[in-house]
């Protein structure tokens, strides 16, 4: 009989973390950045499958890593938000509560499942009436980071964060913020990025009701053109 050999918990966790990080590092990046009237989400994503999504009136989601896994998380988030809004009221659905639920789910999955989820997600909440915007970055192990100004998830996120730390000058207009995001994404991949290779969405305070807006390629091109002129 062969005895099952002992592996220390530290080793198991380390291996899992390494596995998850590797999976995430393979993917492309997504940037969330505050602008004067909201938060812009820009993903380097030429495919028709979305990485950015609306969750609720003031809340958006972005996922990097393995598509099937963050897609499941996205759906679970929409269910969480819609259930809460139906049970109580629309204003009781908050980004913080959702980010917490995600953190719980990912944390549990990381410690209990054999294969950790290879995802990194963003939950952004638009602040209204003097409330600041909320940007939560949640990693594969359930760690949650409350970010200010901007953040990046997905592969090469560290390089992008270094670039943005240098160049982000506070919340300006949407065109400037988009331009900066494209520069950052292009710099990281050493490729020129055009409108068709981008997925862009925003939570915009000037909108009525549901604040989420997805930009179609024509609108993205238009914004890029404007940013070139300014």
């Amino acid at each position, binding site marked *: 009989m062969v005895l099952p050999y002992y592996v220390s918990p530290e080793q198991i966790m380390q291996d899992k973390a390494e596995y998850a990080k590797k999976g995430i590092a393979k993917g492309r990046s997504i940037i969330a950045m505050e602008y004067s009237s909201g938060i812009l989400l820009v993903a380097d994503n030429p495919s028709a499958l979305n990485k950015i999504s609306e969750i609720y009136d003031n809340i958006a989601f972005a996922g990097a890593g393995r598509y099937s896994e963050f897609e499941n998380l996205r759906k*679970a988030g929409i*269910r969480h938000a*819609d259930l809460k809004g139906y049970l109580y009221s629309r204003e009781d659905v908050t980004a913080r509560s959702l980010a917490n*639920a995600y953190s*719980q789910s990912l944390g549990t999955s990381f410690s209990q499942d054999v294969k950790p989820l290879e995802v990194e997600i963003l939950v952004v909440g638009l602040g209204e009436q003097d409330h600041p915007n909320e940007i939560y970055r949640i990693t594969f192990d359930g760690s949650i980071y409350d970010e200010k100004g901007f953040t990046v998830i997905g592969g090469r996120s560290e390089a992008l964060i270094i670039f943005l730390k240098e160049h982000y000058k506070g919340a300006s207009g949407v065109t400037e913020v988009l331009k900066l995001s494209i520069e950052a994404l292009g710099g990281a991949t050493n490729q020129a990025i055009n409108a068709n290779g981008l997925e862009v969405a925003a939570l915009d305070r000037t909108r009525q009701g549901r604040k989420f807006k997805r930009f179609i390629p024509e609108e993205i091109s238009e914004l890029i053109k404007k940013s070139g002129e300014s």
Partner: protein
Amino acid sequence: MCAFPLEDQTSSFSEYLSSHYPHLLQVQKSGIPPLQFLKAEPTLSESFERPPLIPRGTTVLALRHGDGAIIAGDRMATEGFQVSARRIEKVYKADEYSAIAIAGAAGPCIELARLFQTELEHYEKLEGAKLSTDGKANKLGQMVKANLAMAVQGLIVIPIFVSYDLKRQEGRIFKYDITGGRYEETEYYATGSGGKDARNTMKKSYKRDMTEDEAVALALEALYDASEEDVATAGPDLIRGIYPTIKMVTRQGIQDVDEQRIKQVYNIIIERRRVA
């Protein structure tokens, strides 16, 4: 323990509720005892003897015109022969291109409207695409059917659904029965206690390809007639400033008809009918 159940596949919010939180839906799987006192039309003596009546919404209607459709309702809810509420809202936005108006037991009606709104938004967010007009109409039918057990007890919920169909480029009207039966109307429809009276008015003056203004005027006239013939339907309340509500769906989406505009139309109707 997972904070989210991750295994769900349905894109329907009401399906999700019924499989995970069945107590939140008003569907009663087992029969509830007959609620005599909830009868739709108690006799006069019953209404005095049996106090726990529930509020009921009365007349709602919808009407197609050249650019889309409008949907309207009066503002009164009654409990037997008593006025229960003067400012109740019976017309609800369902999504950017559709609206429902509901007649029947007010509580379940409002609940159904809220559930339907959540349903459409939920589907749109999960699937990344809006439901088709027929999809919405069918889903609403299933939700009305889910209320059947309550309906046979007297808690009837009857919606009218209007939607602007972006594919066909026209407004569409759907009516329902308590079993969830879904029927499309091509011109106009009205239901509730004053529904028949409102239908009679619309029948006389309805024209295909009316303008939106004509449609609004006809809808308000129909509600006015219903309020004259049916005691449970309210006309314009000039003293308190309460008027019926109308929403319109067109290619531009859903919009409320301004109260000022409704007021003006009523002023004309009243002047025309005033006995010199």
